[in-house]
């Protein structure tokens, strides 16, 4: 009768395990279903995309009222043959890689500076720096678009690179500061006593030990700029458009939406980042939680 004591009614561990596995499998299936369905939709002919019931079994023919659809790779061919989409894909790669490299480089330097030379108000400066990462993009987009139109940076890759660099920079500075704090300063001081310059000590002693932090910062920065939408939407029109904007534009205002090509473009855009994210998952976890989870 005592509910604080272990009772007879409780499931034993061995009985609970299959239930747990079943629930986990169900969650995984629901969670991955939209992505899987996108891969399938990318392989549909137009007639099969708007069919009821939805068709999700790839086949050679599509009988009435069945779940089979005609498997085709034409959508991928169409996307890969479209010069504009390829150009925007290149924009996405170029902009996210450049801004990640820049923000990691500048952010590591700043992190080192904040870590090794504490100064009064430094802590507040650092909080300020990180809080810029948390600003709503739309609150900044209006003044930035005005500033960019004056500077001629609207719709340029360079403009987006600068902006993404800034937004990742605040995060990079903060993360790298935390990491470099964990590297004892005594190592560099010893190197400097041996006659190495501070620059050499940074490169040879601090840099190798800071690699996990650099990786976490880089992975998270790359994924955020790869997926960024609000700035790309408001600051580009024809030249510097990136894939998230492009893919949404494929839907457009059409009455017959080309779901097949849209899904194919989305698949080609998502696959690299998913593989990258899975390969670097430990660093991604650390970055996405701002270092709160060690990964």
């Amino acid at each position, binding site marked *: 009768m005592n509910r604080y004591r272990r009772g007879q009614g409780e499931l034993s561990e061995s009985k609970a395990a299959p239930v747990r596995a079943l629930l986990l499998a169900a969650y995984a299936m629901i969670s991955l279903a939209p992505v899987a369905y996108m891969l399938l939709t990318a392989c549909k002919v137009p007639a099969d995309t708007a069919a009821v019931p939805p068709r999700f079994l790839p086949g050679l023919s599509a009988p009435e009222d069945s779940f089979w659809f005609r498997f085709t790779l034409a959508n991928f061919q169409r996307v890969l043959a479209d010069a504009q989409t390829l150009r925007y894909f290149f924009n996405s790669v170029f902009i996210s890689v450049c801004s990640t490299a820049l923000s990691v480089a500048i952010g590591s*330097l700043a992190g080192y500076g904040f870590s090794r030379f504490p100064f009064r108000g430094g802590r507040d400066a650092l909080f300020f720096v990180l809080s810029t990462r948390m600003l709503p993009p739309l609150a900044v987009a209006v003044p930035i678009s005005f500033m960019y139109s004056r500077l001629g940076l609207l719709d340029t890759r360079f403009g987006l690179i600068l902006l993404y660099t800034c937004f990742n920079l605040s995060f990079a500075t903060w993360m790298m500061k935390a990491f470099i704090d964990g590297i004892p300063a005594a190592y560099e001081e010893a190197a400097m006593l041996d006659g190495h310059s501070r620059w050499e000590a940074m490169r040879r002693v601090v840099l190798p030990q800071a690699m996990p932090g650099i990786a976490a910062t880089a992975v998270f920065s790359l994924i955020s700029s790869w997926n960024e939408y609000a700035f790309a939407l408001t600051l580009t029109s024809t030249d510097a458009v990136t894939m998230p904007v492009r893919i949404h534009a494929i839907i457009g205002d059409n009455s017959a939406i080309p779901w097949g090509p849209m899904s194919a473009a989305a698949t080609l855009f998502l696959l690299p980042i998913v593989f990258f994210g899975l390969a670097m998952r430990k660093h991604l976890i650390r970055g996405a939680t701002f270092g709160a989870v060690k990964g």
Partner: protein
Amino acid sequence: MSGFNSPSGRRDGRGSFSDRAVRNLCILPALALLIAFNVFPLLASLGVSFTDFNPIIDTAPRFTGMENYLSLVNSPRDEVWRSFSRTGALVLVTVGLETAIGFGVALLLRSRFRGRGLFTAILLIPMMLSPAVMGSFWRYLFNADYGALNWLLDARWNWDGSRALSFWAVALAEVWMWSPFMMLLSLAGLNSIPKALYEAAEVDRASRWLRFRHITLPLAAPMILLGVVFRAMDTFRLFDTAMVLNGNLEGQPTTFVSVLLHARGFGGSRSLGEPTALAYLLLIASLALATLVLRYLDYVRGDRYYGRRL
């Protein structure tokens, strides 16, 4: 600057010229970029928010004082207030669901099994994806006539359009994408609980509920709460999913603050004074949330970065 490469000059204390030069060289590039692209536009727009500045009409902006702010705040039945309350409702709904689902899955993932690491990583896939791209595809799933979701539910609900359902469509897409994040933080919270506590409870023959209530929940709570404040802040500024799913028309159930800002700030020939004032209201709210997040993050991480001796 000349001290940068010289091998001596740092043993003589922290305040020496060379150390200060090194520090400045390290920090200044970052600060310069942040000031140029964050602080300067924000200050400029603070100025604009007190005027009737209009970039299209070529007249000198007129100083209007607090007029823009007052007109925003003093119209309680206005779209602005509604956009804030919609955003608040979205935060409550999505963060609540994400926490419940994430914590539930984390509890299931607690016991060790073969391939657990990879399985957990695969569950994280939704949060690696672009909200705008996935949102575009969600529109296919939400389609009233041939969408897979209506077929699953055996319904013919109109998910897009101005129906109240469009709010739930955005909520569903968000919960799908970010529950894994809450799972991640819940797992971290659960993993931080010392095994010895459970062993002690075992000795005392404490019931499963008692162990959950008095060990699992309180000890995992700080990490989970950190996830909650992170997600609340992110959802508060939500734009991509709502914009992609339902556009930026005013008066929709999905016209959240950021969406309204997009509609008014990039809507054409209006004065920029009012949108920038609105942006400032959003900024103040977000900065308050961000401060909360950062202080709490500092607390959970349990270390003080500043003021520690090197």
